């Protein structure tokens, strides 16, 4: 029997890669599901009257205002009380997706609102139906316009996914915490984790700025 603590070694690579893969997986799930739901909710809000809007808005306000970490703990505790045994990936995906949806719906709504009115009337005057106008004119124009904001939300979701560690999902942060308690090398490990997030996020945000500049011209 050796020492209680063993240093970081190449054998840990697989473990770390699993963490990275899980972080990427849950982020992609939340961004995809959150964007689809956000698009639908944003479109409904853009098209509906002020009463429907106020109702939807207040639900979204709750999702946006309560810190994600509290939502995660509350939801997983609640599921536990109900007697379900949900795996942390599913729990985390649901909460993170809804959280993402709340922000995405505002982004999409702003985009759809900006292509209302005269552009819609001009399209309808060519004989297009309501849905043709949505599909061929309003969606393509507004989706281009909101791309930079969409990317901004997506990037923060990747970073926020670290919080899913609190309910036991083995993403990158949780993996590294376990490695830290075994190796007692927090500095090296957390710097490595930080670099990973930076390497993922920074090029994407540069790309977003590039697209924004290109569209401004």
């Amino acid at each position, binding site marked *: 029997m050796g020492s209680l603590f063993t240093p970081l070694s190449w054998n840990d690579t697989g473990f770390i890669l699993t963490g990275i893969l899980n972080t990427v997986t849950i982020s992609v799930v939340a961004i995809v599901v959150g964007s689809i739901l956000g698009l639908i909710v944003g479109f409904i809000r853009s098209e509906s009257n002020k009463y429907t809007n106020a109702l939807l808005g207040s639900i979204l306000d709750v999702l946006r205002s309560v810190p994600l970490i509290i939502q995660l703990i509350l939801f997983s505790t609640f599921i536990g009380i109900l007697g379900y045994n949900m795996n942390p990936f599913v729990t985390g995906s649901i909460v993170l997706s809804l959280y993402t949806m709340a922000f995405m719906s505002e982004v999409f709504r702003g985009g759809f609102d900006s292509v209302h009115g005269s552009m819609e009337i001009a399209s309808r*005057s*060519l*004989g*297009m139906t309501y849905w*043709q106008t949505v599909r061929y004119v309003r969606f393509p124009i507004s989706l*281009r316009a909101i791309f930079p904001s969409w990317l901004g939300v997506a990037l923060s979701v990747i970073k926020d996914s670290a919080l899913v560690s609190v309910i036991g999902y083995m993403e990158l942060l949780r993996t590294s915490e376990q490695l830290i308690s075994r190796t007692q090398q927090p500095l090296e490990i957390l710097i490595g984790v930080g670099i990973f997030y930076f390497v993922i996020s920074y090029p994407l945000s540069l790309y977003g700025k590039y697209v924004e500049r290109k569209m401004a011209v």
Partner: protein
Amino acid sequence: MINIQNVHKSFGDLEVLKGINLDVKKGEVLSIIGGSGSGKSTLLYCINAIENIQQGNIIVDGIDVHHKDTNQDKLRQKLGMVFQQWNSFPHLTVLENAALAPRIVSGLSKDEAISIAEKELIHVGLGDKFDVYPTKMSGGQQQRLAIARALSMRPDYMLFDEITSALDPELVGEVLDTLRILREDGMTMITVTHEIAFAREVSDHVAFFHQGVIEEMGTPDEVITNPKKETTQKFLSKVLT
């Protein structure tokens, strides 16, 4: 033929059209002039079923525009419309702008839609702009694109709503020239315009709108050169000086 019978239109308590009667026959050009708030643009919107009406009938080629069984999307294919704002589709090239509706609305093949669009764009003088994005063009060019886009649907009637009002003065001429071409083609047109000299030149009939009613209607000579009503005279003396 467009047949407008006793049309009343209100926005809330405000009655904008108070019993309009008008006929526009095939091949005719009608210009509607009048001050702002006289209801002239609203009438165009009602003809195209963009706005509903409270009373009366608008009949286009025997179809009651505001009847509940009327397919208004289909009806609008007959009625091309161009607005004060050109509303080009910024995500599409000039050629795609004009070819979109023929393809998705009329159901033409891509090649057919493109060949119609090319023809209409050449017709309005944009033959060298097919692959340009409209945001790179001047207002006058974008307005001509809007005309070509409407013509690509092969409409029987064209409605023009103050299409030169948002243009810089030096760009007005090229758009009016395009309308002159349509006039020579024999297109049936209703133009709401502030270009009185132009209205006198191209119109078969001129209608002067004042506070929701047709104050005076007749040939350009009757209404513009020798107006009988005092309100018409006042309006013309203001816009012609």
